[in-house]
């Protein structure tokens, strides 16, 4: 009789522990999922927006020079992100594309935005826009 009781108690405790562990594991999944995307995505968005604004303010975008713009992006972009900038300017009849890495973004989450700027070169000025895309490595 005592043996049976002990067996039932052990079985009961084991089932309870397994149940609790399963529930806690499920819960932790939801807890972890809560914050990671929001913060990462906001950071990516701010990085893209701020870098484009800085390059506009310091006149780098206005040069429409791929090397200078790429160097500016690499100086400012956090190491765990990639960035592509597509510049459309009336100075040229083609798009200027500057990217930190020529990789297929696949199914990665991409943040994008746009700024307009007035590219002043010599005595001429050209309406232009810079579209940025940022994704994590």
């Amino acid at each position, binding site marked *: 009789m005592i043996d049976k*009781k002990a067996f*039932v*108690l052990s079985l*009961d*405790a084991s*089932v*309870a*522990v397994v*149940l*609790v562990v399963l*529930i*806690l594991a*499920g*819960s*932790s*999944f*939801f*807890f972890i*999922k*809560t*914050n990671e*995307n*929001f913060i990462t*995505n*906001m950071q990516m*968005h701010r990085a893209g*927006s701020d870098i*484009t*604004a800085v390059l*506009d303010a310091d006149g780098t975008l206005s040069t429409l020079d791929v090397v200078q713009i790429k160097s500016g992006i690499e100086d400012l972009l956090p190491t765990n992100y990639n960035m592509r900038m597509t510049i*459309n300017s*009336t100075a040229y009849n083609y798009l200027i594309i500057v990217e930190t890495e020529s990789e297929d973004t696949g199914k990665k989450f991409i*943040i994008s*935005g*746009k*700024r*307009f*700027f*007035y590219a*002043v070169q010599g005595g001429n*000025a050209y*309406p*232009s*826009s810079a579209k940025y895309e940022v994704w994590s490595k």
Partner: protein
Amino acid sequence: MKKAVFFTLGLTMFAFIVLSLSFLFAENASRYDERFIELVSINRVYDLDASLQTSFSKIFSTKSGMSYTASTTEAIFQHKLPLDYATLNNEYQKFRNFAQAENNKIVIDALPRNISLKISEIELRYWQNITKNISYFTPSNKNPSSYSFVLDFFETNISSCNSSSTASGNFSLSVAATGGNSTTCNLTLSINPNLQASVGIDLGSNALTVQFSNYVASVEAINNNVSVTSRVKYSANIKPKIELDSKINITIPYLIARRYGNIRIA
């Protein structure tokens, strides 16, 4: 035996409480996604708007032939009469067309024929009537404490100048003009700001008049080549912000983000 059942029940209850909390957090997470979309939309509209305003500000500073600065007590406008409206409008129109073609949710007003700049805090409107070659200063909220106009007629000689005011007061209206062959005209009037006053400058075949009435001042030129520096002083502190009275409207469809307002140029 009873103890074991309570133990199991207690543990299970605790687990379910944790599970419910996690569901609440998951529900919150989906709200974070909505907040994220809203924040990004607002940021996108802000970026578009701020960059357009900066671009138009550059167009104004490089193509209008005007310069404008404002401090906490004074607004200064420098320009030539007549204003080169055609060059300014051409550049403005080029940028406007480009931005609207890039994004059909951006609508920018055409540059008005009579350009109007305002210091928003005090509602001082400076505007130019292109066809009549007149610059106006029209305060509508706070009145200025003085107007000062510095005029340069370059090679044209000043023949004479005169002033008229109906009553004296404590408002200062001053005109300092320089012409060819070192001819000058310097007049400072202490007038009653609610009444009329005027300064006339005779340039032989042409003339320039500074009119004042009830805090509204105007510079009316017939001469085609005069540089005008206008200073409007305030005794109260003003916010140094100058806007072009022309609007940008940006919307992101299906989302709440929208911006509609004047173009800030300084």
